[in-house]
């Protein structure tokens, strides 16, 4: 399960996917389904009602600002460039934490999924550590790593690590023995078996694990930024609370939601060609 082997198999998938694309593409392209827009109806209706209520003086809108004021705050933050500083700070922390946590999760998950001895050795300890709510590490991380970036990244990495570790180890353990036998019949070496059978077989579940890892990364970045930061969307939240600016809090929440959704979509669509062969399962996600 080296990085090299991984990239190799990934590229060969892309090749296979590209080959298969033409005959499938024609069939798959359908007319846009307008019913998807139905999902927007409820939030838009609520927003318009609240906007109207505040505009008509039925509600004050001080604690729950109307959408127009939230939009104005967001716009102002964006114009001064302040928003991008915070977004960038938050994204950077998530990225570093995610890469560290996911890399460790993949490596240790692969080891514990492929070797029974290593699993007996590692898994009980990791399961015990998993039982600790990750936020509980915060004081220790601050003592060890200081109050700056390192402790925040460490917290995010821990949050990302566990779902990735569990997902990878579980995916390897559940690889169909019958397909592995096909590899034996064609006398694949251990590395060939890993690259040509195990890796593609675990790929779908591995991507799901990375997705939940990323989701947890977004959760933990908020916690990390709560514990004292001078920039980041989490800082905007704390600042908005201390300064009594609910519109800033809501603007930050909306920014979080958008970023989270964009990051998740990038992961899903960026890896889609790798698992096109089973996209039926992904459509249900």
């Amino acid at each position: 399960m080296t990085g090299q082997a991984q990239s190799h198999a990934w590229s060969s998938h892309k090749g296979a996917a590209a080959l298969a694309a033409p005959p499938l593409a024609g069939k798959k392209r359908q007319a846009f389904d307008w019913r998807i827009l139905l999902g927007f109806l409820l939030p838009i209706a609520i927003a318009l009602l609240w906007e109207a209520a505040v505009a008509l003086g039925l509600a004050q809108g001080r604690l729950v600002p109307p959408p127009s004021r939230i939009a104005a705050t967001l716009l102002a933050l964006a114009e001064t460039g302040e928003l991008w500083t915070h977004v960038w700070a938050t994204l950077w922390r998530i990225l570093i934490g995610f890469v560290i946590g996911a890399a460790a999760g993949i490596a240790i998950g692969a080891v514990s999924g492929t070797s029974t001895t290593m699993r007996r050795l590692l898994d009980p300890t990791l399961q015990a550590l998993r039982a600790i709510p990750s936020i509980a590490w915060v004081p220790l991380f601050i003592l060890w790593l200081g109050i700056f970036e390192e402790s925040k990244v460490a917290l995010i990495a821990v949050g990302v690590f566990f779902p990735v570790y569990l997902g990878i180890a579980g995916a390897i353990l559940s690889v169909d023995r019958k397909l592995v036998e096909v590899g034996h019949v064609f006398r694949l070496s251990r590395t060939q078996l890993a690259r040509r059978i195990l890796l593609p077989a675990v790929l779908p579940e591995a991507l799901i694990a990375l997705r939940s890892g990323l989701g947890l990364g977004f959760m933990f970045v908020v916690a990390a930024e709560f514990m004292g930061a001078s920039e980041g969307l989490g800082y905007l939240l704390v600042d908005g609370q201390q300064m009594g600016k609910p519109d800033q809090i809501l603007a930050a929440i909306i920014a979080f939601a958008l970023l989270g959704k964009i990051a998740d979509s990038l992961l899903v669509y960026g890896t889609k060609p790798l698992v096109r062969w089973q996209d039926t399962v992904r459509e249900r996600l």
Partner: protein
Amino acid sequence: MLNLEHLSKTYADGTRALSDINLSVREAEIVALIGGSGCGKTTLLRLIAGLDRASAGTIRLDDEVLSGPHPAIGIVFQEPRLLPWLTVSDNIAFGLDGVSAAERKARVAHALEKIGLVEHADRWPRDLSGGQQQRVAIARAFVTNPKVLLLDEPFSALDAFTRASLHEHLLGLWEETRPIVVLVTHDVQEAVTLADRAIVMQPKPGRIFDELSLSLARPRDKSGLPFESSVRRVLSALDQSLNPPQKQPQREKDRQAAALWW
């Protein structure tokens, strides 16, 4: 020439799946292994394929003693076992790693033509029917030009019509290189359609009960008298294997009943 000598297999839990199997298969011969479930047919194929180890005895292919998967031995399992992330043509090419790209392409194209799936070359296995998937599995085993091809009830999950067409595809591929074929089946018609020889097996422990020669001219006429009589011969041997004569004085009656049932 494939030789099995005193082959036995006892599983870790003490199940005696095979006991003292002796069998010689000539070049280009198609042998059918027939018997109820639990006779050790799958076990026997897995031993020859090198997927399991025999408890005793040897497997010899042209004077070479086999001890593990061998390039000259191909197997088609009861399920297609295609790799879902590879297209049909990549699945067929799976065992052709040591072959040049041009040669690989040519062999895959030829195999696709032989199994009649040229237009499905770039599809995923999930888009194929069960019968088409099994054809791909057969092609995957054939393209490496094995000397011995093992088939473990490869058609049992298919309807009779699909099965008949797969028999033709199989014989078409077989004609080209004429490998030894060991075909496991519980379908007497299938055995007589394809095989030169039927080996009837008995369970507990798995052993060979009887051998029948089925040397009919190919292509075989399934409605002809020789075919019918071969089917009847195999059925009666199978019946005897289920009801050993010394314990069953009423053998004749039972045989008729069994023939009806089959």
